[in-house]
């Protein structure tokens, strides 16, 4: 189940959304000095056109832009179930705007001009968080695939086993012999690649909505 090696920092991109050309380009350049890949967008609309659920990394967004504002972009990303952390940048910080950004789930809120130390630390932490989220998502889809391959009977056995029943009790509930339960149980473990009962419980927990 280990997935840490499937994603590397190289595949992550910082999506820079800012209507000001120099602010946008200079930020991308600053990121490049730390070998962080980035891609610039001049409006919320152009980023939304590019967005898809498989993007990996984080987003930096300016609050004040013509057309959709940064906060409206955050709202739109939330309705699309975006998982990338969003860092909000603003030229004029005031408390109501900060509170709204935070309530919309902003990862952080930085006032322009920010110090490069601060911005880079923030972006790096956001990318690390993005990786964790990606891993959790991959684990979820792998577990889902594993469960899809189970037969109806194997699924029944798994549910009862996970609930804490002994093989004997499971056999009694389903009207089959203990020996048959053991066989089903072994196939469940094999198909889900679970190494222990607790790992099986975890897979079920991850997918509690889907079963």
């Amino acid at each position: 189940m280990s997935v840490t090696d499937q994603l590397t920092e190289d595949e992550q991109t910082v999506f820079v959304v800012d209507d000001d050309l120099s602010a946008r380009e200079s930020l991308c350049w600053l990121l490049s000095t730390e070998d962080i890949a980035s891609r610039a967008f001049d409006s919320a609309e152009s980023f939304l056109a590019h967005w898809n659920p498989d993007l990996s990394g984080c987003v930096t967004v300016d609050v004040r832009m013509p057309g959709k504002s940064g906060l409206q972009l955050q709202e739109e990303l939330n309705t699309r179930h975006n998982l990338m952390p969003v860092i909000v940048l603003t030229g004029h910080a005031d408390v109501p705007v900060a509170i709204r950004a935070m309530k919309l789930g902003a990862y952080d809120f930085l006032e322009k001009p920010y110090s490069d130390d601060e911005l880079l630390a923030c972006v790096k932490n956001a990318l690390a968080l993005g990786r964790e989220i990606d891993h959790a998502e991959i684990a979820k889809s792998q577990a889902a695939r594993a469960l899809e391959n189970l037969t109806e009977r194997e699924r029944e056995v798994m549910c009862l086993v996970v609930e804490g029943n002994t093989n004997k009790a499971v056999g009694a509930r389903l009207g089959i012999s203990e020996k048959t339960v053991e066989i089903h149980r072994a196939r469940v473990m094999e198909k889900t690649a679970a190494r222990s009962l607790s790992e099986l419980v975890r897979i079920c927990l991850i997918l509690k909505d889907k079963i």
Partner: protein
Amino acid sequence: MVIHALLLCLVAGLVLPRFALAQADMSIGVLAFRGKQDAIERWLPTARYLSERITDYRFEIVPLTLEGMLDQVEQNRLDFILTNTGNYVVLENAFGISRLATLKVRHLGAEFTQFGAVIFTRQDNTELNALADVAGHSMLAVSEEAFGGFQMAWRELLDAGIDPFEDLRLKFGGFPQDDIVHAVLAGEVDVGTVRSGTLERMAADGLIELDRIKVLGARQSDVFPFLHSTRLYPEWPFAKARGTPEKLAQRVAVALLELEPDSEAALRAYSAGWTIPLDYGPVHELFRELEIGPYAYLGKPSLTSVWREYKGWIIFSLAMMLLLVALLILISRANRRISQSELKYRAEANQRRLAQELLARHKEELEERVAERTAELADVNASLRRSEATLRAIHDITSNAELRFEDKLAGLLREGCRFFEMETGLVVNTGGDNADTLARVDIETERAPVDCHRLVQSVREQIGISQAPVAVSDLRGHSFQGQEDLCGLAGSVLAADYLVDDEAAGIILFASSSASPREFSDVDIDILQLMAQWLGGEIERTEINRRAQAHQAQLAHVSRLNTMGEMATGIAHELNQPLTAILNYSGGSLRLLQKRGNGDSELHQAIVSIGNDARRAADIIKGLREFIQRGEHRRERFVLEDCIESAVELLRPRLLQHDIEVDIRRAEAVPEIVADRVQIEQVAVNLLINAIDAVCAGSQSPKKIEIGITRTDAGEVAVSVSDSGDLLSQSVIERLFDPFYTTKSDGMGMGLSISRSIVESHGGTIEYLVNEAQHPTFRFTLPVT
């Protein structure tokens, strides 16, 4: 299906007891610089506040020393960290903690998010006048690790060419800092350094006298009033540990930002709550320069030259300021024109008509009586003719629109003196505690003028008791109820009180030093009362006018402040973009230089200077904005409809001029709101002015503006202003709320931009839309509380 149900039960059984029922514990590590007990007392209310706001967690305080803090953070035992600025930056660098909010410290009655340190000596020490002079002298500080108590001063001394460890006899005395101040004043050491504000607090407590202290290397700041010798650094941050869940950190940040300044949690922390985290970059710079904390590894940098290239920015800022002032003058002229209100004239005409009707009525009555009595008594007839002439005179005086109030008053009194055959007439305002003479007329005689002071008091009491005018033609042998003999003061007196807003506000009084040659009649008293009535009405009208003008002046003032604030915000936004770019490039360049190992220290220093100067330019802009926006919001509870109506009333002359119909529709059960009433009225005025211009430019007829006040599904209050003008084009809609964007030949392009700022600062939204009737509409919402 059975399986699904089974599994759901199983999952519920597994998950619920562990995650929903039990509260999880969250530890807040707190730096206890004055001992554990003090730290707990100071921060426990904050932990309780967080537990109340975020009910699924329980927050607890863990008081720690500097070393303890390092251990606990390293071993991942803390979820949140509350520590001093210097320690925060060390932990941020080493363990990736990150700040959520900055403390607003309350000190001597004001709030500060920054602090510094002061370096000082005794006032009578003539050898020491600047930081550079302290070499070879003794100095006392808190400790080598103390950020405000030593490290800030260390940086400034280094900048002045002094290494405190080599060039000074340096001693550390620990807390409290008061001991350092006493040691310097007692002459035990030459120089001391303490956190800013310490000296002012000791002076306020009467422990020291500030004029015995000489500050070395003093700096000035518009926003920071305390003596300080060092740069300013941000106050304590509230930070989260690397492993703390992001969602929880956001909820904590929001809770901290919403902490009321007067709550127990804020007061016990000696604070006014929390604000958006400040930039801790300057602290990084300090550590980098001192080669301590996270930068202990750095090589020795040279700090010598200041690059002057960025003077351009300052000149540009000043030019912008001048532009601001010029625009301000334009606005104030425009406002003055608006305030030539037709309201005033209508109210005046109305009052005049009432007074005239009153006079006409009395004239009729008097003429009737004249007719009756002419037949009977010739002398009475003569007196009535005289009174008729007087009435005409009074009518002429009071209805003359060209006379000022004071002139009318004097004319009235003169006419009264002539008619009643008295020497002195006066009007006294008795509304306040003291009698206040509004006007006095003395007919020249050879006798000394009457002393009215005591007379007024006695007459006033008498009128208060009898509730009727006083008319005594011969005071000899006459005594008022419970009063001493008044014949020493005057010979005769005639007085009545006048009412303003149905309350006795003053009296009109005529007096003579000798007895009157005739008895006062009903006609005399009628005329006296007529004068009193006119007087009360006139004062009431003046008061209403004054209030209306004060309201308009306030609106104009707020409008000017808003315009300035909005322009500053617009300029700040435009300037901050290139400044951000400069800082990105200079920061990146330093990183590249370091990475490639180029030892070109001159180039390195120049790039550092570029960054410093860009930051300085940003600080100037920020200072300018803070200066302009210092005006506070006054929140009050009011009915939105009243506020909208008052805006419509203000623009009534324009609406009449262009023959525009205004329709206000209010839904049922719209609650009162809590907001800055004048600001909201400003938004309504802005939207109405736009609507008036739109219907005038449009082709539709009849010209019509509709205002709707409703409650939204989200429980907010919404105001929509729609007009019969043309719909806006897409290109205009895109830039509608941008500052300085306008479609009018005489517009500044600030109205909608200001409106948006006001509405957003109240937590509401504003938008343009097309309503069901296909009319252009501006709609704003405001939260109820």
